């Protein structure tokens, strides 16, 4: 008898839950349809960036006939996987998607992205920094608009540097090496690297290397890491740092331990993109006031060369629906080109990619960051950090190209480099193994491979 009652209960809850599920389905169905209620055009944006959703309100106020839905479907590689799935299923892809600069060639060469030069973006060259424009301008088309940028800079913990007797900020890599030894002597590491492909790209880019190239027709790809003397230059230098145990190869970037290291000074500096300030504030809050920003060390005394690290663009997925692509372009334009849209995001912590903001007084004179509660935090001890970062953006070397399968390449970089982090092999060997794998992969994908 007890069980008879129980089955009734189970059946009832099941039925109720199913009804709930059904009702739910009805609610979500409209999310992907072209026009929602009241004749509004609805566009769907995939982005994990925390500042983009803030622009929706301002945009919708100006465009009452368009409704924007921004969803976070996962951070970088997870979003690309979702995007690949949706594109191969021909269903469920968004109208706009956040794509990092390094991944952009991949989607552009697959002919998945709308060339924005037909829609009015071709004249934007002087609007953006050279580094970011260079990244979205591929084979004569404009395949996205820059959302933010990440010119490299040297972020350092002044307290630890002072304690170690490094009173002059290193301006060349030789000085950086000397500083690393002094900092090691007081028990800290100058920085950490456990095999990060984005870091490798940025560092070799700054050294002037151009290991990757794709032909205009997109069929031939050049992969020449081992034969590029500039790759070798960085590689030898970094190997020396590893051999003398001057950098921490044990702590992976972005891990909790890494944040702890930045917080307590056991990792004393970072070679990182200009978007780092807000991450430092939330990841290493106790070190507030101790950090400073400086230009990257260079290979020659008095040099200024720099590179980009990270940064994202907003790309439009090709669609046949004209009204949708027009609405999507309007939002893209607002979020990445309109002064109001850009300001909203910069206020939220994005590092700008446009020259106007980088030149503006308000931006350059900032001496504090806004924390999660909206309070001012002089994280860089009152330094006008944006003056340094803005200059760094101007110094980016042009002409560096990513692979048309950079997402894959970065995914396997760490595996090839595990040996150097445990010091059982050299960077040279890791890079050679990476190159071999990349060449094989390129062949499987149908490319003609050149060295």
């Amino acid at each position, binding site marked *: 008898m*007890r*069980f*008879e009652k129980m*089955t009734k209960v*189970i059946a009832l*809850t*099941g039925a109720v*839950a199913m009804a*709930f*599920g059904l009702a*739910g*389905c009805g609610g*979500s169905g409209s*999310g*992907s349809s072209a026009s929602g209620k009241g004749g509004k055009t609805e566009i769907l944006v*995939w982005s*994990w*960036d*925390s*500042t983009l959703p803030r622009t929706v309100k301002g945009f919708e106020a100006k465009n009452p006939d368009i409704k924007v839905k921004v*969803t*976070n*479907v*996962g*951070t*970088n590689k*997870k979003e690309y*996987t*979702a995007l690949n*799935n*949706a594109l*191969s*299923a*021909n*269903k*469920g892809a968004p109208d706009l998607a956040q794509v990092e600069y390094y991944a952009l060639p991949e989607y552009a060469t697959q002919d998945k992205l709308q060339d924005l030069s037909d829609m009015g973006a071709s004249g934007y060259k002087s609007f953006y920094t050279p580094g970011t424009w260079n990244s979205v301008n591929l084979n004569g088309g404009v395949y996205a608009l820059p959302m*933010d940028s*990440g010119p490299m800079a040297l972020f350092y913990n002044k307290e630890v540097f002072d304690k170690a007797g490094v009173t002059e900020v290193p301006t060349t890599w030789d000085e950086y090496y000397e500083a690393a030894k002094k900092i090691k002597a007081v028990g800290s590491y100058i920085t950490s690297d456990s095999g990060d492909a984005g870091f490798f790209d940025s560092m070799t880019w700054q050294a002037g290397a151009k290991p990757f190239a794709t032909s205009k027709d997109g069929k031939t790809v050049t992969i020449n890491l081992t034969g590029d003397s500039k790759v070798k230059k960085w590689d030898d230098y970094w190997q020396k740092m590893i051999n003398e145990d001057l950098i921490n190869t044990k702590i992976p970037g*972005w891990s*909790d331990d890494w*944040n*702890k290291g930045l*917080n*307590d000074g056991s990792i004393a500096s970072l070679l990182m993109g200009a*978007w*780092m300030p*807000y*991450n430092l504030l*939330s*990841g*290493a*809050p*106790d070190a507030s006031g101790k950090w400073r920003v400086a230009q990257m060390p260079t290979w020659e005394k008095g040099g200024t060369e720099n590179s980009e690290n*990270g*940064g*994202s663009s907003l790309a439009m997925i090709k669609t046949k629906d004209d009204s949708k692509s027009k609405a999507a372009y309007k939002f893209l334009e607002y979020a990445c080109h309109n002064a109001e849209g850009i300001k909203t995001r910069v206020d939220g*912590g*994005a*590092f700008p990619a446009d020259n106007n903001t980088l030149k503006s007084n308000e931006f350059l004179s900032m001496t504090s960051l806004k924390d*999660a509660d909206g309070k001012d935090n002089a994280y860089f001890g009152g330094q006008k950090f944006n003056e340094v970062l803005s200059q760094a953006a101007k110094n980016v070397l042009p002409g560096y190209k990513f692979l048309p399968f950079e997402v894959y390449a970065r995914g396997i970089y760490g595996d090839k480099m595990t040996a150097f982090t445990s010091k059982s092999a050299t960077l040279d060997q890791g890079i050679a193994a990476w190159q071999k794998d990349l060449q094989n992969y390129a062949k499987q994908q149908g490319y003609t491979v050149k060295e």
Partner: protein
Amino acid sequence: MSVLDAGGRRVRAAERARARRVAADERAERRRAASSGFSNPSNPRRSVWLTLACGVFALYCLFPFAYLLVNATKTQADFTSTFGLGPGRSFALWDNIREVFSYQDGIFARWLANTLMYVVVGAGGATLLAVMGGYALAKFRFPGRKAVFAVVLGAISVPGIALAVPQFLLFAKLGLTNTPWAMIVPSLISPFGLYLMWIFSDQAVPGELLEAARVDGASEWRTFRTISLPLLAPGIVTCALFTIVATWNNYFLPLIMLKDADWYPLTIGLNQWKDQASTAGGQAIQNLVITGSLITIIPLVIAFLLLQKYWQSGLAAGAVKE
């Protein structure tokens, strides 16, 4: 009714005979164990090494839980600056819980409700289907039974992850991706549950009992409901626990199926919070991720504590054929 009563008498007689056999077996086992030196409940000799080994395993299993408990009491600042297993400078558990449920307009509660819905409908449905299917396969003879057996065994050996992408493409064609159905429908199928219920039904429901009921004129449905279901209870609970845990922890399926934060289960939502710290300009909310994880496992812990005695008897069922 009289035949059913006779059936009941027969069952009771069989049960007494079984108890006698078990008692005899246990006596023999005690004698054997005592002579060979193994310990058992009636020969409680302790082994230092086995105790140590069990202790190590217990530590290994409880360590992440302890870490979770300790760190759920810390603020974000304490989390990055104090020793991982030591207490923080302030006790922020209640603040953390409040913030977990209020962050991003309280989306955590929505994820919790989604997960509960997926579990009730998905795992509940899977259990129901497994019980009925397993019972039918064990107690009815029909053409194609062997084929079903082969298919089910084959299905158990294919990991769910391998099917996820084809499932995604199929669901995209049907227009079901990004709806709760994409999560529920695949969860309804549990080959292992079916197999378990099949074997369990075969052992736990005597054929004589069903014959008696049929002779009495009970319909198959009534027989199933009033006679078989009570006998199957431990198996059902075991099967339900398996499917509940599988659905509650399911990560890969919703990861590829769902693109709308309003339909995320906890696994995907928490992961998204975790990733936020490593994005440019993203706010680190590790304290909320950890507190959220703690809240996430509580329902599972409760389910296990409540159902563990059924779970144990269900696991052992079918181990010995009488």
